[in-house]
């Protein structure tokens, strides 16, 4: 019987099926099952602790969310939307700026790009802990710099006006390198002949950017805006480490996490209902963004 790297011909027939079955089983176990369980739990008052009863209650969590606790739900959705818009706009702008600045072919620029991309590989908890220390009004360097330059003090993450913008800034710092890479890939796909023709027509740098670079970067913009918006929609870990959700920073993701998993008070049922709201929000915003960005690509 002929042999090859993957065994006999008879065993090779099973390889395509195994290739489907193994990831398929993984998806069923770690994708579909938790999703269905979340839908199920959202109709219960389940504490989430092993062995405790499900306490099926129908639509009680949904009713509560849109009646007695509507202020909490809408409040956290408002913070989430502010966060998504702020982070998406800022990260796209910073990423594009960095891409335009560092789209050069030399070793030095490769090092710069690697340094800017590096925060992406750190865990959110590590980045959060580092910035919590940097922004500590007593032990961190940020206060000393602020005081040295302007003679003022700030409580940074303990300020109702500053906490949310600072968390957004940390998010942008962490992921701007990723956006930069997408834009650099986009920039390298623009033929240089287009710029040469524009230069012959007397176009300046600003005009070339506005009429050539920006329109031709539309596919890259679609990708980066969509990914950034989707990523920041579910943000909770960075907020949890930096502010614990205090000072007006409680996103829907954090509200869900604390409701579902806070030791001592956790109610997985209510948290699951918030996860369903998060899902709906993601579908609506993600779908709208894709529609608008695709239409924009065609128009440009």
């Amino acid at each position, binding site marked *: *019987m002929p042999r090859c790297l*993957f*065994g*006999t011909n*008879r*065993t090779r027939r099973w390889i395509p099926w195994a290739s489907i079955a193994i990831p398929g089983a993984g998806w069923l176990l770690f994708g579909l099952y938790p999703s269905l369980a979340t839908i199920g739990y959202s109709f219960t*008052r*389940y*504490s*989430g*602790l*092993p*062995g*405790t*009863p499900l*306490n099926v209650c129908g639509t*009680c969590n949904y009713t*509560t*969310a849109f*009646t*007695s*606790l509507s*202020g*909490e739900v809408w409040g956290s959705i408002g913070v989430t939307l502010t966060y998504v818009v702020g982070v998406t706009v800022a990260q796209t702008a910073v990423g594009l700026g960095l891409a335009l600045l560092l789209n050069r072919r030399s070793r030095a620029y490769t090092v710069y790009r690697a340094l800017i991309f590096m925060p992406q590989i750190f865990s959110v*908890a590590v980045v959060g802990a580092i910035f*919590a*220390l940097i*922004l*500590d*009004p*007593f*032990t961190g360097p940020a*206060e000393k710099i602020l005081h040295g330059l302007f003679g003022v*003090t*700030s*409580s*940074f*993450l*303990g*300020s*109702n006006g500053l906490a949310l913008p600072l968390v957004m800034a940390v998010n942008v710092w962490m992921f701007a390198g990723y956006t930069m890479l997408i834009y650099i890939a986009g920039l390298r796909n623009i033929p240089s002949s287009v710029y040469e023709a524009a230069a012959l027509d007397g176009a300046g740098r600003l005009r070339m950017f506005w009429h050539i670079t920006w329109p031709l970067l539309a596919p890259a913009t679609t990708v980066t805006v969509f990914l950034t918006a989707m990523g920041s929609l579910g943000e909770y870990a960075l907020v*949890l*480490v930096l502010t*614990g959700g*205090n*000072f007006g920073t409680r996103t829907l993701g954090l*509200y869900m*996490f604390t*409701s579902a*998993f*806070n*030791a*001592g*008070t*956790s*109610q997985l*049922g*209510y*948290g699951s209902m*918030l996860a369903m709201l998060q899902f709906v929000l993601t579908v609506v915003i993600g779908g709208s963004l894709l529609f608008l960005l695709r239409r924009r690509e065609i128009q440009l």
Partner: protein
Amino acid sequence: MRPRIPRRPLAALLAGACVAAGLAGCTVGGSAASADKQTLTIAEWTNPGAIEFTKELNKQFEKQHPGVTVKLQQAPTANGAWGQLSNSLLQSRSVDVMAQFAPTQAGFAPAYTKIAPAGPAALIAADKLVDLKNQPFMKNYDPTMQAAAVGHNGGVYGVLAAEYVAAGAIWYKKDLLAKYGLQVPTTYQEFIAVCDTLRKKGVTPIFVAGKDGMQGGVWQGIVNQVLMKGKRAGDATTVSHDRAVAFWKGQQSWNDPVYRDATARYQKVMRYIEPSASGVAQQTAPGVWAAKADDYAFLLDGSWDGLTIQQANPKLNLSFFSFPGTDSAADNRVAIKPDLTWVVPTTAPNRKLAMEWLSLFSQKENYQKWLASTGSVSTQPGLSNTGLPWMDWLNAHGSDSFPILTNPWIPAGAAIDAAGPDFSKLAPIGSDSADTILKRSAAAYRKSVG
């Protein structure tokens, strides 16, 4: 002809089986599963003093029980890490003795509220914790206190091992007060006068981890002292219950005079805090406070942080007292908060060993060491925490202490305001006035209970 079994898939199958066995916590061969070798698993959140003590106790237990290995699992309480660990240990049915925060009676809201129990209260209600009421070692503890902290329907489902002064605990620098001829204040007016004097001398009176809301302890302390005025310590559970019922029925609210007065007093105290304190986290506050021996006379914190403060500045001559919230020294009693409680899940693989471990823990000499390691208030009658220099004030003034009052019942997901004022929004740390905050809290509570 016998069918030939392909070797590579067979090898893969065996490898898969080994991985699966490893994931399931099994071992191949008989040594680990032999009857005379047992592993007792203890789980506890990370508190340096408590962990050190537990490790020592575990060594003692292993010496007394040849063949038994005690495994200690730990995680910090910050960012939900402890919750995740304790849930996974319960899920895997691999933990024998586990630390939990005492649920208190507030964890069991009446059926008419339709509020399902959460945390350890949910485990008790579902019969997932062993009733320890009749265990011999429970005789070492005050039964009333244990029942209030972790009792339900006549059973006692844990050992309340640690209690702390949480509402209004104030650490102070003895030498700094002595330098300006100041005494530990016994009334609210005296406290304000001491703060005034310190400020005139160029000392910022108060430091606090405002980012984590530790300033709320002052408000809680005042409310507790006012509501427990003239009441016996044993009445605390009834007072809490009656208040919860009155809130539920709409007969009381966060906008009542007692809370308005407490808020006004709180705001006056907040005038003396370090202006940037709202950005300070609880993790760094004790260290920053301890390092500045000549400034910040007071630190608003829980009494559990003594060892952390001492490690940050071993030369600091420190102690703590309970915030005097009223104008009468006699009414300014200490409110004690139940904290670490050892529980035994019904799924514990070594229940008998777990009881023996708790019995060893409860022995007077060991419990005395536990008190010294954790800075806890004793839950064993006849024993007091005399091993730490900063317990002097409490040992002199703690005889009429009472269990801290628990908050009115609120459903899961309710607004922060529903459980009382949101101190991050209340002036001077936030920008909202007392009137706005209390009206918002009252409305949030009413709305949250439907």
